[in-house]
């Protein structure tokens, strides 16, 4: 039995010879216990120079490494003298088999088990749009939400309803759009209805978000009546359900939503949005009385999201509320957006009655990241691809956090996310693995 622990090596001219002996140790059927190797420098014995010390230090490190490997080869724990990373501590004795190892000759049978989720809650289902049979004029309506497990954990439960992708259209031709986006809509900027029609017919929009920017007192201060006209034009131009976006001014938005809710009947519109600083009671009553739906918008704060929902419950049924906790772009806070949404979804599944709503995301915000639109060096070109992949990856990431309703912009990103959603809904097992190791790609 060799116990390096018991070998005391003194730094003198014979040292390397002694070290060399390690190379001759035969390691068959031996038991090595390697707790620590002690080295001491013998004072005054020939004046050890610092380059020599450095060299010796290096040699010792080699010994240590090979000693670690030797013990490891023999099934012992790695030495605590190894990496001082918190994750790199020695394995717990007892988990590692004692040397010498009896090597298995056959695979040890195992079953991996299937994780079971025991969530008591589920996400409420919300219906968007209304067909003729349902009292509206749309050719289709959608139900979103209804999840009982984490997003696309298909082995636990099938995803009950497919997330919906809506395209953004703006009623203001001067809306700042990235070049890569604008090139697809340039001809339609002046005609909101036509813009919406192109989104549905050419780019496969499942819904349309009409953003009424011109009502902004700082833009055109357009009247609620004028806004209503625009919405009616869009309803005329497309037959998919639509959502109505305000300008962000709490008073003006309320006035415009009021005109729309009171004058358009039976379409189950999605009002985007109600915020904590709006007339919550008034807005909620509008939504309730018109049997429309509403997005409760808060800014990346789980508690605020809860607070707003709670305030809405007094006036409007849960089945008419979506929540939007703010989307930040990839590279520009996506991690916060992702985590707040993931936390809301999990809380809802775990039974929090104030957070179990379908999630909505303004995925178009991906374009706020400069990397999505900026001219960069040739190594990052072309930006015509960089932009839409940016929006796609922002969308995919939030899809995995639980988003049910996407508001998007770039046709290629819409197509890619739609494809991804379709594939994620499937639960069929692939027939065989994909060979890549030896394939010429």
């Amino acid at each position: 039995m060799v116990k390096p622990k018991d070998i005391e090596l003194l730094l003198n001219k014979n040292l390397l010879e002694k070290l060399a002996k390690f190379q001759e140790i035969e390691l068959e059927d031996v038991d090595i216990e390697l707790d620590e190797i002690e080295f001491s420098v013998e004072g005054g014995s020939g004046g050890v120079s610092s380059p020599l010390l450095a060299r010796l230090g290096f040699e010792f490190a080699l010994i240590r490494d090979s000693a670690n490997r030797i013990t490891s080869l023999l099934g012992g724990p790695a030495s605590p003298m190894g990496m001082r990373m918190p994750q790199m501590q020695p394995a717990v004795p007892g988990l590692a088999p004692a040397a010498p190892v009896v090597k298995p000759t056959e695979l040890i049978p195992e079953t991996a088990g299937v994780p079971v989720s025991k969530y008591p809650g589920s996400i409420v289902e919300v219906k968007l749009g209304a067909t003729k049979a349902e009292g509206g004029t749309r050719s289709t309506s959608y139900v979103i939400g209804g999840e009982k497990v984490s997003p696309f954990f298909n082995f636990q439960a099938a995803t009950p309803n497919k997330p919906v992708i809506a395209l953004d259209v703006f009623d203001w031709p001067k809306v700042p759009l990235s070049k890569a986006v604008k090139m697809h809509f340039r001809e339609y900027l002046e005609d909101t209805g036509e813009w919406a029609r192109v989104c549905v017919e050419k780019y496969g929009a499942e819904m349309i978000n009409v953003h009424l920017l011109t009502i902004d007192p700082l833009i055109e201060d357009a009247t609620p009546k004028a806004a209503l006209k625009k919405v009616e034009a869009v309803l005329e131009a497309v037959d998919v359900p639509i959502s109505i976006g305000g300008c962000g001014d709490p008073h003006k938005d309320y006035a415009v939503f009021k005109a729309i809710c009171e004058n358009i009947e039976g379409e189950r519109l999605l009002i985007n949005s109600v915020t904590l600083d709006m007339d919550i009671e008034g807005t909620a009553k509008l939504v309730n009385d018109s049997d429309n739906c509403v997005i409760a918008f808060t800014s990346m704060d789980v508690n605020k999201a809860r607070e707003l929902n709670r305030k809405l419950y007094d006036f409007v049924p849960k089945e008419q509320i979506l929540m939007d906790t703010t989307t930040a772009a990839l590279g520009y806070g996506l991690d916060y957006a992702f985590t707040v949404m993931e936390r809301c979804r999990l809380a809802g599944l775990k039974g929090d009655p104030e957070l179990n709503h379908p999630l909505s995301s303004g995925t178009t915000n991906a374009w706020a990241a400069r990397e999505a639109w900026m001219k960069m060096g040739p190594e990052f070109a072309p930006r015509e691809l960089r932009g839409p992949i940016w929006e796609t990856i922002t969308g995919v990431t939030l899809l995995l956090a639980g988003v049910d309703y996407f508001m998007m912009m770039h046709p290629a990103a819409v197509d890619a996310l739609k494809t991804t959603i379709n594939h994620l809904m499937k639960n069929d097992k692939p027939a065989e693995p994909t060979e890549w190791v030896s394939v010429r790609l």
Partner: protein
Amino acid sequence: MPAKELSPIDIYQRLPRTNCGECGEANCMAFAAKLVNREALLDDCTPLLEPKNKEAYDNLWALLKPAVKAVEVGVGENALTLGGEYVFFRHEFTYFHQPAIAVDVSDEMSDEEFELRVNVVNDFSYEYIGMKLTLDMLAVRSTSGDPDTFAAAVRKAGELTQKPMILCTHSPELMQKGLEVVADKRPLIYAATKENWKEMAELALQYGCPLVASSPQDLDTLKSITHTLEAYGVKDIVVDPGTKPIDYIAANLNNFVKQRWQSINEEEEHMGYPILGLPLVAWTVEEEDTIINEWNEAVLAALCIDRFADAMIIHGISGWALLPQVILRNNIYTDPRKPVSVEPELCVYGEPDELSPVLLTTNFALTFYTVASDIESAKLDCYLLVVDSEGMSVESAVAGRKMTADTVAEALANFKVGDKVKHRHLVIPGRSARLSGEIQELSGWTVSVGPMDSSGIAKYLNEKWTPFPED
């Protein structure tokens, strides 16, 4: 015990409780808190290293060790840690080690293509809020099936890069040839399968290199292999649960989720190993244009990053596809426990005088660093007023009423901006345009709306800035 349930008391009770302060903390309780947050090392506690405390040490390690083993690949300053994770969702604690990204080369590639790809691994770099985002590894695959050809490719790779390698072949004979060349660089061996596990295990032991256990689409067999490898004496294992092209992205997600859930939430033995994702399978599909392959690969990579991969191999090397991947993994692996804001203050750039511009931004860290780096790189002389927006970006802060005319006027007064400059002219971000009137009214400063993005600040100031616009 899962990391999320561990409390400082659990740790404190097992420490020597000498309050000696040798770890650098005031007392053992403070040290225990640091350990729970993984901000201190167990070995920093000197008394704990004494032989009499060995049992306590081992018990503590059992509590503190990650549910997903940390596996080291490579040597020297380019060495990487794969895995070493404690939690399933990032908000439960934090993720520690970003998934390593490997680019592949094959032993039949032309010298030109081979070198180009190695150079991408070596040189790809993107400056992002004060950090350099880079690629990490080179995967050398054998498409030739010829031992000498593979050995030559591995040798060439070893000469061209110091970054860790993954040697990819299912043939133990070829693997041995490759390992003979670069075993001292501690490459990751891909892979032990249900067919070749014994030979690969021997090689892993002989050369002291980490080993991938591969069982695509079959987690039972994967666990079988890892268990058997452990019994064989192999310690450093990475697992490949299989990655399929985009059509089967659901299968990828579900395999990764099952593997990671069992290792973390169920603390299943034999399953707590880093996961290898293989977005490059997107290139095995015949597409009209290789852009589609590269695009789908980026989507698969995003899935890998969002959902538990600890390393991945990619084939595409176009910057438009790489950039979102390296930024996404940086984002997801950012510590969610750390504040996202900077201190509100009046920042000074260059040597501003009393006629220099005063700019405005919010205290969201990403916003602030982006604006600051644009000002610095343009070498502007100016003031930047950072208002407290509770850590939100300009757009969100305006929408969420975190940055209002009130908060801006208050900041102008608090930081005595009027004492620094003679003029009363404030340039606000383009995305806060809607506040311009109110700010002007409340603060008495003339307000101009600057560019939508801070990359336009230099141009804007150059063309439009004048201290006294009303004259």
